Structure formats: C-alpha cells, structure tokens
C-alpha cells in the first residue's frame, strides 16, 4: 500500500547538510580551478572498494568554506548498474536517468541538432566510451588541481578499478564576479532552498540576498525525498531493506519496506557548451552597423552594439537587468535580482520577451495573473553549478582565422529533482520554444540552435517591433550526460552493495 502523505516529522526534519555533497550547497566559487574526470568502471569490486575510501574525502555541504581541494562524485545509470546496484533499485530511477541524455526525442527537445547533435559531440554520445562515474575536483590553484588529479588517479587506478574514458574537462573562473565568456555576469538568478541553513551561494553570491518571493523553492525541488513545491516528497530511487538499505531512511513513497537511496541527493545535468565569442561580437557589431547605415537617425535598439547585446541577454554585462535598467547599465545595481516583468515590462519594451534571461526565468510574466505565473515558474527552476572553461578572450581579433582561436565556453552543471519538469522543461518550453510568450518562430538568441540560414530575434519597440535576422549558433554542445549525485550515506551504501 502506498502512503500518500509524507510523515510530518520527516517533512519538518532540518536539512542535514553533513549528509549532502558540497555541490548542493555551493558552486565552489572561491576555488578558481575545476576538473571534471569522466570515468569508466573496469572492475566493479575494485570500484566499490575505491568508493568506500573516497567517500571519506568527499566534501560535504556542512563543511565550512575552505581553500583545500574539494571533490564530489556522481554516477550515470549505467555506472550504478556496473557498480552492482540491484535491478529492483535501478528500476526506481527516473526514465531520463535510465535512458541518458541522448535519445532521439531528448535531442529534439533539448535542441541538440545540427552542430550540437550528439553525432558531433566530443564525449557522452553512444559512439563514445560509456561514462560511469564523474569526479568533480575543485582547487585554488592549477598546481593543486594537477596534484589532486594525480592523487585521484593513483587511488581509482590503483587496482585498475576505474579508468578515465575521456579527456578531463577543465573549468576555470574568469574573474571574481562570475563573468562568462560573452562578457556578462552569470549565475545571478538562482533558486534558494527554503530552510537552507545559510544562503545558498551561486558562483559569486550578490551582496544583498535576493528576496524570497522571486527565488525561494521547497527543498524537494533540488533534494530527493523532500517536500517539493507540491508539498509531497520528491520521489527518488529506493532500495530493499535486506540489501543493507536499512542504513538509509525509509522511503515515504512507493511500496512499503523500501529505503531512500536518494536521501540528501539530487540529479545532476552536465553539458559542455562551446561559446563562439568572436562570432557573437562580430555578429553584434555587424548587425548594429548595418542598422545604423539603413536609418542613421532612428532610435533603434539594434543600432547600438552594447544595447543590442544587452537586449539579446536581457541584462547588461554588469548584470543590471534591462527590466530595471532599460537605457544604461547604471540605472540599476550590478547583478540586481529583485524584479518582475509583469508590472513594468509586460510588453517587453525594456527586456524583449525572447531575451535569454527572460526565457530562462520568466518570473511573473508568463500569464495574465502575476502570482499564478510566478508560482508556476517556480515549479521549473534549476540550481546552476557550472563555470566557464577555456582561456578568456581578451580582444576582438581583427581578422579571426579558423583554427587559431582556442575553444572556450561554459560547463553547464545544474541540480534538480525532476529532469523532465525542471531542466528539460526550461530547455524545451522556455529556451528552445519557437513560440515562447506568443512569439512567432524564434528560439533563444544567445543559446538556441538556430535554423539553417540563421535565426531571428524580435525586440519589442515603439512604434513597432524591431527584428534582427541571420543569427548563427553562438553556442554548440560538445558533450553531456545525466548523473545521480548521491548523499554521503548513499555513497556508503553504494560502496557496500553485494552482487
């Protein structure tokens, strides 16, 4: 029999940060360097022994911020199977984790087509070696990162238990305010977990904590088995008591007698997104120049390079949102996050309806009723934990030539409790939706996969809207995967499964 309501004491129980991996609580924005190791399990018994050791080194969300190396560990569904998790437990994972990021339907809704199609990926597609485990390593300096990698390798490679099946991916912060490669402050608008013992930090938390109205979500939107926005436990994977599962708390859903493998855990989305920075800057400059040439005297948002770029993003480079700062970046505080669209900009005259940040978080603007719109939006938030990779771009190359520009981009990492309702929804219903907010056939101008011949972007304006065309892909997917980020007790359980 099913129990319909979460037990109250479980609901009320404080969040046990010591059982959570650190990534739930922080993006390690104080550690400039990160390396993501993509591992395959060669010897399951050895891998379990390794996990039993490494769990002691995993940084938890309860530990104070520290400058030493921090590691987290996540698993694909194939990895959990390879590790020896029982079939009855594997079947309790959600379908997206079981199937992975690459299916025909999923590629369709995530926008992974054209240059971003899995057939063009560098890793993570079916024609690549299967990834089982990801080790996330964060360090203060490059030397420490290299040393940590060496140490990890000596541990997981000792009995040839695990092998690196793909080139490690290096993340690197560009500055201490969270700027991404296009030059805009990133990671500003983050959901905040209700009841979290301290402010959940983004890469670089703004000085003033954003008001709960815009940001607060129930813990179950990120953590499994906790009350979600529907006040029911977010269903996570479960294991049988007999398998040693009684070390884990009992599950509040599904058949009786199952234990909660997802306790203190979350689901992690990882995507390597290459950014064509010179292409972006060139396109913006050329589009602005041709707008000026066509109508030199017109008040035209596309005629000004920085305004056009800000219209595409929905914020100025310093993070000031167009909704508050329509004319210049000084009209609102850098990184301001206390605003909605409904009252001051429902028509999109300030921040275009299809601007990147408005698609990624429509706040209170998606419906006629702002309160319903906002509470609806909050059912589709993701906790971002990514960072840039590749060298910063200093100047616009005068004559960019193919091949000499090193790759750079964003390592997109986010946590959510429900891939379909959260990450995939944001990607499909908001960012890639050609008809978002009543628009006619255009996708996210910054991150979208554009149609052949280039995409279009509408900027609401007076007397009539301005449309810019011929937008190329500025972002290309290079690889990705869906992972389970277990809690600490769950890691111990996984280390002890018997096959």
């Amino acid at each position, binding site marked *: 029999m*099913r129990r*319909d309501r979460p037990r109250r004491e479980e609901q009320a129980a404080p969040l046990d940060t010591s059982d959570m991996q650190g990534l739930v609580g922080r993006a390690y924005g104080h550690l400039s360097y990160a390396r993501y190791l993509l591992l395959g399990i060669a010897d399951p018994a050895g891998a379990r022994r390794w996990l039993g050791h490494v769990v002691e080194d995993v940084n938890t969300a309860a530990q104070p911020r520290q400058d030493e190396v921090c590691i987290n560990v996540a698993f694909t569904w194939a990895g959990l199977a390879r590790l020896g998790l029982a079939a009855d437990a594997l079947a309790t994972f*959600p*379908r997206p984790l*079981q*199937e992975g990021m690459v*299916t*025909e*339907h999923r590629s*369709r*809704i995530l926008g992974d087509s054209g240059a971003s199609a899995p057939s063009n990926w560098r890793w993570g597609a079916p024609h690549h070696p299967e990834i089982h485990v990801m080790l996330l390593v964060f360090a203060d300096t490059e030397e420490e990162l290299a040393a940590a990698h060496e140490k990890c390798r000596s541990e997981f490679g000792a009995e040839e238990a695990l092998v690196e099946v793909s080139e490690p991916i290096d993340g690197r912060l560009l500055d201490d305010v969270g700027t991404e490669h296009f030059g805009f402050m990133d990671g500003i608008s983050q959901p905040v977990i209700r009841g979290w013992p301290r402010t959940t930090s983004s890469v670089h938390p703004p000085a003033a904590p954003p008001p709960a109205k815009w940001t607060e979500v129930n813990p179950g939107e990120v953590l499994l088995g906790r009350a*979600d*926005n*529907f006040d*029911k436990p*977010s*269903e996570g994977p479960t294991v049988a008591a007999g398998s040693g599962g009684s070390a884990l708390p009992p599950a509040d*859903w*599904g*058949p009786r007698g199952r234990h909660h493998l997802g306790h203190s855990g979350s689901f992690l989305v990882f995507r390597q997104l290459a950014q064509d920075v010179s292409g972006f800057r060139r396109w913006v400059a050329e589009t602005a120049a041709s707008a000026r040439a*066509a*109508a030199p*005297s*017109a*008040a*035209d948002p596309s005629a000004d390079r920085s305004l056009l770029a800000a219209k595409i993003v929905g914020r100025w480079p310093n993070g000031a949102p167009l909704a508050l700062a329509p004319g210049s970046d000084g009209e609102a505080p850098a990184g301001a996050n206390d605003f909605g669209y409904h009252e001051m900009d429902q*028509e999109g005259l300030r921040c275009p309806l299809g601007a990147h940040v408005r698609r990624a978080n429509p706040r209170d603007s998606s*419906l*006629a*009723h702002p309160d*319903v719109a906002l*509470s*609806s939006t909050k*059912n*589709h938030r993701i906790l971002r934990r990514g960072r840039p990779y590749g060298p910063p771009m200093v100047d616009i190359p005068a004559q960019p030539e193919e091949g000499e520009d090193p790759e750079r981009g964003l390592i997109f990492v986010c946590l959510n409790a*429900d891939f*379909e*309702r959260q990450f*995939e*929804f944001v990607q*499909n*219903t908001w960012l890639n*939706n*050609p*008809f978002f907010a*009543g628009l*006619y*056939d255009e996708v996210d101008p910054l991150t979208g996969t554009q149609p052949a011949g280039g995409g279009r972007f509408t900027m*609401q304006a*007076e*007397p*009539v*809207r*301005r*449309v810019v065309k011929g937008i190329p892909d500025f972002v290309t997917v290079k690889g990705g995967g869906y992972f389970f980020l277990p809690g600490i007790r769950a890691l111990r359980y996984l280390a002890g499964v018997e096959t």
Partner: protein
Amino acid sequence: MTQTIFTIITEVEPAEVGALQTVLAEVGADPVANTVLPLGSFDVLHFASLTLVEMNGLPPTLIFEHNVDTSVDDWLRTLVDRAPGGLDALYTHCKGYPVGGDPLRVRAYLREHVVAPGAYHVGATGRSLTQVRQEAGLRDAIEGFLESEDGAGRLRNDPPDAVRTAVQQFVKSDDAFSWTRKTPERQTKSEHRRHQVRFWANVAAAVVMAPVLLPTLAIGVVVLRVKERTDPVQQGPADPAHVKALSDTEDFIAQNHLASVIPVKPGLLRAAILPAVLHILNLLARMSYTKGELGGIPSIHFAHWSVFDRGRHLLFLSNFDGSWESYLADFIDKAATGLTAVWSNTVNFPRTRLLLRDGATDGPRFRQWARSNQVASQVWYSAYPGLTMPMIDNNTAIREALFVRLDGEEVHRWLQRL
C-alpha cells in the same frame, strides 16, 4: 459559424487488428497526403486522429476524432462522398460495417457510431479553418511589409498613427485581402445569448429541484468521502517503455496530441457524478471560455471528454501547443480543480478530497497517472502545424482592429501585436 467536435467509435474484429494496424500505419506515415485517407484535402478539418485501443476490459476499438467547421451530418456526407475508399479500408476491419460500399449505408453506419462529447473546448471559437489560414497569411504579409519598409529605413521614427495608416494602406492595396472587411465575429451575439440562456435555465432547474437534489447530494457526499479514502491510487511512474513510445511521436510541430482512455470507477456514485460534472463544465466552457483560454490555459486548440462503452470508459482527446510537460504543467498550475472533478471518477486517479480538492494539484503523481493512461494514436493530423493558439488569437485581433477606429492607447497595443 460553429465548430463540431465528435468521435466515431467502432469495435474492431479481433482477427482484423493486424490488418487495421497496417492501414493505420500507412495513413499515419503521411496524414496530409497519403493515398488511403488524405486528411489534408479537406478544408473544414482542423485536427483529426485515429486511435486503435487495445486494453483490458475493452474490446479492440477504433476511435476516429473529428474537429470540423460543419455539422456532423454535413461532415459525414463529405467524408463518404470524397473518401469512400479510405473509409472502406479502415472500417472493413470493424464489426457491422456494410460491405459493398453503398454510400447511404456507410453514412448510416458512421452516424450510428458517432459519440458526442460530454464536454469540449474550442480555442479558436467561431473561426473556420479558412479564416485561421487567411488571418495567418495576412499577418505574414504585414510582417513582410514591415520588413521591407524597415530595410529601407522607413517607419522606425514615424508616429504610431502613421505606421498604422501605412499598414492599412498596404492591406487595402492588395485585392487578395478584400475579405478582411467582412469576416464575422468570433461568436455571434445570438450564439452567445443562446449559451447564456441555456446556462441560466440549468441554474433555475437546479434551484427548482433543490428539495430533491440536496438530500441526495448529502448522501452522495458521505459515500464519496468514504470512497475517496479507500479508492486505489496511482502507484509509481508509468512503464518507461510505454512513455518512450509515446514521447518518440511528440514535439515535431507546434502542437502535440494527447489521447487517453480510462476505465470509470465502478458503481452508481461515479456513474452519476461523471456526466453531471461534464455537463456543468460544458455549460461553463460555452459561457466563459470562448476567448481562447480554458481556465487560464492559453494553449488548447480542441479538446474534449466523452463517456463511451456504456459509461464504462472515459475518453479524452486534446490538440494543444507545446510539449506534454508544458501541457501537464498548465493542467496542474491552472486547471487542477476542473480536471480533478472529471478524472477523479476514473481508476487510480491521485487521492482527492470532496471531488475537487487535491487530485491534480499533486503534480508528480498526476503526471505519472496521465502518462500511464495515455494511449498512442496511430494517426494524427493538424491543419496548421506552425500555428499556436496565441498566434491564431493574435492574428485574429490584428484583423479585427485593422479598420476600426482606435484611440491612442489602442493604436499602441495594436501595433505591438504586429
């Protein structure tokens, strides 16, 4: 102009299921222009689907969904006249189909199997397929005009009235748009009045019947509360293979299709509640939801519920914008009460209180339940794969206000629609 929504539900000869599947696969591979039943050849058909249902407790059944701009009889006449071979190819596998192809008998057979909706919603109320297409063409032409003016550096600095006048002159200058001045209202006043009269007549009848109804209701509520505590509910997620098969067919065009066939909970109580709820919802839908939205959901083109199989099964068919996930999110966030009132009368629905409470508000369980009970349609046709409901409404609003007198604020709002 009134749209008609209905299904033709027929029992399939068990031995013929495989043969029917072959025909459905051929039609489904190219619903617009296949040689069996080219659905794109009808200029009054908005959406259609063919669903072969095989499930426990129901004989193999073929459900043919129609959303048309004409009456049932006129539409059946058109179908039989223009696609006799296609109908033969499908229905020869169904019980009782008159072999020999006599048009009168075929029409009578289809008529006999028509199931009218218990409750339905039309997004583009009062707008024919022709009108939807004409208005989309008009908007595209205006878009093209603005592009070329803009490319030449014109209009950007002009006052709003001048821009509007330029657009009006552009439309007037093209004889292809002469229809813009005589298209009818979305819903005529007499239609609207009829629906209002019907609604209030129902209210009056309920008041008159109150002395009988209230005691029955009181007993009903007690029984309902007992059942609501003990009825079995959805257990865990839908079978991954089932969901994968469904999602493989989704997200190709602007709209998606959802079909579900669910057993009604046994017993007198549900048999009484379900038709009553559908009746009330239908009255409300005719009264209130004629502006494109259904209870705050702006994305539904055509949707309906009907009870069939002698009251034992509830059918739901919907043609909506965007993904299944976004549709279900709309259900949960905006229309949970009405949906709960209907679907809680079918098996395994998430736990409810007093018919209207909880239920669909338990988003994750409601999504699991909805996927578990969804059935795959072998054929699905959309007459306008690139038009969303907000686009259709916006196109209509552009046309409606094209030549009427507007004040300054109205001109601003009209220009923002372009």
